[in-house]
């Protein structure tokens, strides 16, 4: 401690205090900007009476966006959000093509061609007590 001159000590103290204030300021700024004013996006979609979707039907639900399939085994749904960077895939023939970077998925959502790595997400579908189809995106 003895070879730390008074001037060096003051300089070190100043630098330390400035660094701490700066870090606190940046932290506070991030907390400030981290607040969300809007309610979280909807995760539940009412698709109307299940009877509107007969067995064998395959329907596009654009505002989810999802693809609803009613097969022998019941209802299932695929999210149409590309797993690469989130563009909405387009139906092409029986497949799904992403317009942003060219990923291609088959009818079950499996990746046929990258850059996407993961298959299209399967969404949960249920029929509620009124007989309406409810699609969950969470």
């Amino acid at each position: 401690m003895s070879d730390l001159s008074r001037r060096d000590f003051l300089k070190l103290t100043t630098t330390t205090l400035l660094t701490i204030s700066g870090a606190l300021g940046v932290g506070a700024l991030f907390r400030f900007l981290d607040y969300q004013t809007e309610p979280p996006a909807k995760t539940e979609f009412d698709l109307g009476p299940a009877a509107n979707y007969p067995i064998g039907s395959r329907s596009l639900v654009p505002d989810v966006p999802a693809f609803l399939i009613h097969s022998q085994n019941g209802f299932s749904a695929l999210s149409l959000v590309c797993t690469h960077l989130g563009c909405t895939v387009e139906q092409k023939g029986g497949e799904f093509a992403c317009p942003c970077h060219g990923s291609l998925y088959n009818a079950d959502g499996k990746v046929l061609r990258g850059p996407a790595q993961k298959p299209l997400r399967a969404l949960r579908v249920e029929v509620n007590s009124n007989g309406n189809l409810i699609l969950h995106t969470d």
Partner: protein
Amino acid sequence: MRPSFFHHLHPPTIPAKQSRWRYTLGAGGMAVFLLLVLGATGILELFYYIPTPDQAARSIQTISYLVPFGGLVRNIHFWAAQLLLIVSAVHLVRVVFTGSYAPPRRFNYLLGLALFIFAILLDFTGYVLRWDQGIQWALVVGTNLIKTIPLIGNLLYIVLTGGTQPGLPTLIRFYAWHIFGLTLGAVILGVWHIFRVRRDGGIAVPPPPLRVDKERITRKELARREVLAMLMTGAALILFAAFIPAPIAQPISDINVMAGDAKAPWFFLWVQQMLKWGDPFTWGVFVPLIVLAVLALIPYIFPKPADSELGKWFPRSNRSAQIILAVIALLIIVLTIFGSLPAS
């Protein structure tokens, strides 16, 4: 005469050889002029632009088609922004190809590079302000890229967009950054950059004993050339603005509904092309940051050109820096061309 701000930026005389167009390309000066034009036209747009998802695209249509001279103002703002990116890139290439980044101008090279980044961010935030179907996918992809950053990605996403998907808070935030945050940063960096040019002894020239050509021009001649460059740039802007309108499409009705064109804005086509190769973080964040880091390190890794070689194109003592920059520029141009081809 009392020295004015004008005199502050213009020394009484400067070497004739290094003030030729074919040496400086006039690119730095044009960038300054374009920034002024962007400020003036941007302020005019503020009087009509409404930063909400329902109204943004409609208010831009109002200014484009109904307000007298509104189309001209908006198109000049648009074209000045595109031209600014080209002119700044040309300026950067000129500085590296003439070796002018060497000490004592190292720090000013970094200021210039930061200014270039700000221009890109201003261009991207401005483009998002349209909030029409033309920008929808670039916005979704651009913000989702932030999410791929390890550890802090999700926090950064919310800080940037104000929510879990693009919406009203996103538009307000981009607006605040565009007209205030980034603009203020660009003004500070720009003034500092110009001040440093003078402080570092003007543009790079050989020391007096080594100058072959001793001719000098006066500050009046320099100012005359600057005015000429401004007039030509101004004329080009008005021509572009009159004949090629800035795009505007339908407002975004639902951020999830596929509509419009999935192309990135032209200055990010090279990144969009790389994203086709795979992992989004690697190609969309990491590689562009590496490119930026290499550019920033140029004045720190490569030797200072020989004194006698300052103030001219392609100094022999600095070939390596020239080659690296040429390769980067060429790759970006080729990727941009591939990225602009219609998807098969």
